């Protein structure tokens, strides 16, 4: 409460002052001269002839009005004065309360000083006590030192024994530690491996899902692209197909020529013998695998000759256009 008041102390004063100023302003504005006419804003009143009676009545009316007005004003002044004295009273009460508060605070500070002095005295007494204790401790330490001195030899002997013991223990522990470490390592490695395998599995699963998603997206994208194609595109495509067909033909005969040059076959293989070779190539034409199958004769000699012919031709001629390239090639070898 004290704290709140102290914080609002000046606000209260300000509020009172503000009220006084406001009242004063109000009084001045009511009593003062009427506001001046604006410059150049002279209002020309056209003279109009009126009769006297009428004017007198009018004047009388105006005067009574004036009187009523003055009376109202006087009443209002009275009201204001009453309010002002009320405010004055409130202010005085407030001041009294504040003075009371100040008095109380001074009283409290006096109390505090007394307490501090008491505490200082107490501290002095404690210090004396502590000094005394210190002296006792010193004496005790001296005694202990003597005991320690006496025990020193015993301790050294024990220390020696302990050192030996510790050495043994240390060695034992080191061994144990090594074994534990090895075990831990092994376990860690196994764990790691398992974790890695698991991680790999998860990654692969993720990859698969991702690949599937991509494939789906790709497919959808392509389907969309497909839809966009109009007749013009179709025509372009036909042209492109014709071009690709030519390129493909060139590509295939380049491969055939190369492989034929590398096909060294046993003359004992009968004419008409055929063999199929399925080949996988990398984009650079490098042959990854060549597998003979469905041979109609010639045995191992035929199979080896056709597989070797392809392997020897690696890298195969490059595709003239990426679109005629194919990872898989199926050769049919025929002895003629």
């Amino acid at each position, binding site marked *: 409460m004290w704290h709140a008041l102290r914080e609002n102390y000046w606000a209260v004063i300000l509020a009172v002052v503000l009220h006084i100023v406001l009242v004063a302003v109000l009084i001045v504005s009511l009593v003062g001269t009427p506001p001046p006419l604006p410059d150049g804003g002279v209002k020309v009143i056209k003279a109009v002839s009126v009769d006297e009676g009428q004017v007198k009545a009018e004047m009388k009316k105006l005067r009574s009005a004036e009187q009523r007005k003055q009376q109202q004003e006087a009443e209002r002044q009275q009201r204001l004065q009453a309010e002002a004295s009320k405010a004055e009273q409130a202010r005085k009460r407030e001041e009294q309360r504040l003075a009371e508060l100040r008095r109380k605070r001074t009283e409290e500070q006096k109390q505090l000083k007394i307490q501090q002095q008491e505490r200082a005295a107490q501290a002095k007494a404690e210090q004396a006590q502590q000094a005394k204790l210190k002296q006792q401790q010193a004496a005790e330490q001296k005694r202990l030192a003597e005991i320690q001195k006496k025990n020193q030899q015993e301790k050294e002997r024990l220390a020696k024994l302990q050192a030996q013991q510790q050495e043994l223990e240390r060695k034992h522990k080191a061994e144990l530690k090594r074994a534990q470490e090895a075990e831990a390592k092994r376990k860690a490695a196994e764990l790691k491996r398992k974790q890695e395998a698991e991680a790999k599995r998860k990654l692969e699963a993720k990859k698969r899902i991702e690949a599937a998603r991509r494939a789906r997206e790709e497919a959808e994208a392509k389907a969309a692209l497909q839809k966009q194609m109009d007749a013009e595109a179709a025509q372009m*495509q036909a042209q*492109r197909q014709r071009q690709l067909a030519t390129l493909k033909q060139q590509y295939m005969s380049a491969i055939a020529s190369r492989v034929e040059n590398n096909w060294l*076959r*046993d003359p*004992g293989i009968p004419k008409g013998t055929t063999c199929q070779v399925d080949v996988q190539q990398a984009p650079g034409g490098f042959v990854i695998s060549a597998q003979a199958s469905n041979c109609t004769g010639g045995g*191992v000699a035929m199979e*080896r000759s056709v597989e070797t012919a392809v392997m*020897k031709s690696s890298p195969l001629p490059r595709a003239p256009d990426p679109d*005629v390239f194919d990872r898989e090639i199926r050769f049919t070898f025929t002895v003629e």
Partner: protein
Amino acid sequence: MLNRMIRWIPALLCGGLLWSASAYAVLEIQITQGIEGGVPIAIVPFKWTGSGAPPGQDVSAIVSADLARTGRFKLLASKNFLERPHSGAEVNFENWRSLGVDDLVVGQVRPAAGGAYNVQFQLFDIYKAPTGQDIGKPDYQIKQLAGYSVPSRANELRRTAHYISDIIYKQLTGQRGAFSTRIAYITVTHGRKGTLYSLQVADADGYNPHEVLNSPAPIMSPSWSPDGSKLAYVSFEGGRPAIYIQDLATGARQKVSARKGINGAPAWSPDGKQLALTLSYVDQGNPEIFVLNLATHALRRITYNSAIDTEPTWSPDGKSLVFTSDRSGGPQLYQVDASGGRPKRLTFDGSYNARAAFSPDGKLLAMVHGEGKVFKIAVLDLKTGLFRVLTDGREDESPTFAPNGSMILYATVYKQRGVLAAVSVDGRVRQRLQLRDGEVREPAWGPFTD
């Protein structure tokens, strides 16, 4: 799923810009040309790892000669080698690839206890591509087709070399090699004491000959028993022909036929129990085919014709005999059931076809084929009737198939002297065999003996 497929079909049919022909079709390429020839192979001379002098027999040289003789391999001359590795780990395959060889053999001969040897060798396919199981393996392990360590007694290095040749041949051709088999033949030498005939048995390459019999009178027509343990032959000892069977291991022999007139052309049946032969004691000296039961000595007559019927040979299934007969005027080949019956003529090409030899698979018949006054070896394909002349000599005779059917050994005349030669069944490769001096004739290629 089906919906998705249906959505895809137009894309497949039309082929989008990004989906041109390449996406689904496999490229299909026809190969018909190519080059006929032997498989190019390099055999690096095997390293002798012992401290003393190397063994007298050069194993890698014997293997090289064996493979070259078949005509199915082209051996790279060692002067062209870029390196001389002796084990797989030492091989740089790029070097061999650049030399154009398909296969490579490396090896070493190590000394073993008691003067014996250990021959190690590895065969590589230079072009063998790694498969899924090969990940992480060194190149030489991926490309190795065979690798063996063969123990060999001191005097058996040639045999070991032939054994290695057999392994390599089997790996590279799929067929059993016949390098470890033996051949029998007759030699004739003329000296101060007159003419000496000798029956000999040697390795298939003509090395390592052993004499089985010698005589101042003619020896003829050696024929192997199917198990390779005995030889039947004709000997004129005593001035008259008789047929003997001689055990090669013990030397013991039996006279199985010494009838009046001809006792000739013995031919062992595939089951080893019978001997087909030519006898002329019947019908006033007319040669006919008979079959002699070796256990009972019972004789069964097969042919009845006033012409010369001789040179019987068994089909590999033992069910029929093919023989030479001039019943049509000149000698031609006829086939008859082994139990007898009406013979059927097989040859119609030319005026002279005689002395048939069946290929081991029974599909081919090799023979002496006369063209005017020259005689060559020809082969008749019994299934297709295709007739091919394989040799270009003037006096070629006595064809005999290798037990694996890959080659035909025959007798020919070279520089006025009878020698043996081998021809591949396709007739492409002919090679004379290395033999000693004197006339050599009537080769008979022995069977597989294991």
